[in-house]
């Protein structure tokens, strides 16, 4: 009987957590609304130069977009995790 009540307590706690979690996700990526709001502030329009980006290449070496000035550059973005 004690185990039964203990299990009930755990389930009830999880249920309360589930019901009262804020309606927005709290992850580091934030909500879709946050992303859209931030993107609208930093969007680069067609014809405008890209802001300077400092990235890491696949070998982990720093790559500065400024170093590629004068070359044709194709930037693609994709998920790095395959489901």
């Amino acid at each position, binding site marked *: 009987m004690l185990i*039964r009540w203990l*299990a009930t307590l755990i*389930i009830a706690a*999880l*249920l309360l957590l*589930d019901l009262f979690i804020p309606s927005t*996700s709290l992850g580091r*990526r934030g909500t879709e609304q946050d992303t859209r709001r931030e993107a609208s502030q930093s969007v680069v329009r067609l014809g405008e130069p890209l802001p300077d980006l400092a990235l890491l290449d696949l070998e982990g070496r720093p790559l500065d977009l400024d170093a590629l000035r004068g070359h044709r550059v194709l930037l693609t973005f994709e998920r790095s995790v*395959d489901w």
Partner: protein
Amino acid sequence: MSTTIYRTLCGALGLGLLGLGLGLFAMFFQYHTPGSPPAEPIPVGPGGAYYQALAGCALVAWGGVLLGAARKPQAAPWIASVTACALVLNAFYRILAWLIGDYAFLGNLLRVEAAIMLLLALAFVWLKPRPLVGQPL
């Protein structure tokens, strides 16, 4: 009365899991069929399809065990305990997935699923049948 509810619960959930398991198993073949459209709502890669099939096989086993419990509930009361545990674990990772935020495109689905699973777990905890002692099963 509680035995009837327990048997109904086991039977319904068992059938549901069996169907879901077979569906996930079939999605592996759907993924590898040339020219087949990507799965919705979450398109998967080769790894995802592999684990879908694995989960499908496990769900078939789980569903089969629950159908067995529906037929003879007192033969194996432990099925209620392990099912409740599995449902709680399922709900727990859904709550965490919601918090992480990578699944925001699914809306409230994760939370609703977690709530349903926790309620089902509660039902399994309290409807768990007493084992038969000294009687042939």
